């Protein structure tokens, strides 16, 4: 008797990205393609996109001196109960797990125009860890599957 084996969907991708906004778009397409067979909830996919967007924006805008070519590594891995995203860059040291987001405002006057990205990442993440090794920032973010 013949049996049909369902091929396993890929669970991991690894990308090298530059700093431009188009790099996020390219990464998102690759991530969407990887995640599509895994049928993750819409909220989880949204959180993954937020983390990709915010951390790429942060590295591209702040990690490198003006005029320096921005390069970063991205690894995304689908695991049993979470999705793991790792960023790797050779920019200036910055540990986002230690940074404190500004307090939430009660009024428009109190509101700061910027500084929201880190809060969004923290809200999206189940956990975050940071290591500085050999002159590189290594940031790991885990997002619960459901």
């Amino acid at each position, binding site marked *: 008797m013949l049996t049909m084996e369902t091929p396993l969907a890929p669970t991991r991708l690894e990308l090298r990205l530059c700093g431009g*906004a*188009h790099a*996020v*778009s390219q990464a998102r397409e690759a991530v969407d393609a990887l995640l599509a067979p895994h049928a993750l909830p*819409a*909220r989880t996919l*949204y959180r993954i*996109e*937020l983390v990709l*967007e*915010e951390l790429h*924006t942060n590295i591209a805008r702040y990690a490198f001196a003006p005029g320096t070519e921005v390069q970063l590594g991205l690894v995304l891995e689908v695991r049993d109960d979470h999705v793991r995203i790792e960023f790797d860059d050779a920019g200036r040291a910055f540990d986002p797990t230690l940074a404190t987001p500004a307090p*939430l*405002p*009660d*009024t*428009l006057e109190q*509101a*700061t*125009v*910027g*500084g*929201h*990205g880190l*809060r*969004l990442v923290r*809200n999206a993440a189940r956990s975050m860890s940071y290591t500085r090794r050999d002159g590189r920032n290594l940031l790991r973010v885990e997002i619960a599957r459901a």
Partner: protein
Amino acid sequence: MDIEIGELPGGITHIGLVGRLDAAGAERVGTPFTAAVVAKARPALVDLAGVSFIASMGLRLIIATAKGMRGKGAAFVLYGAQPLVAETLEQAAMGQIVPIAATRAEALALLAG
């Protein structure tokens, strides 16, 4: 990211945003959005129903616009956000900063109030 600029009766500016309000989207619509809303300094409604995703650079654009409108004494109301976009707005306490309505009718009522 696309922006549709119109006018409602009573001299109200109506803006429809469509697409992703991420860093690239905010950069694309930032100048026309500010010109249509803050520079005119008239009451403005912003329809977010077509926005599928918002990130911090989109929040930045909205807060800067709200501050600009406050400086000119003009009302500014958001409405129609999809659920996941609405959650992101809540995480930044946007409801404390800008009036947010579910529908255009509610948004118009907030403007009138």
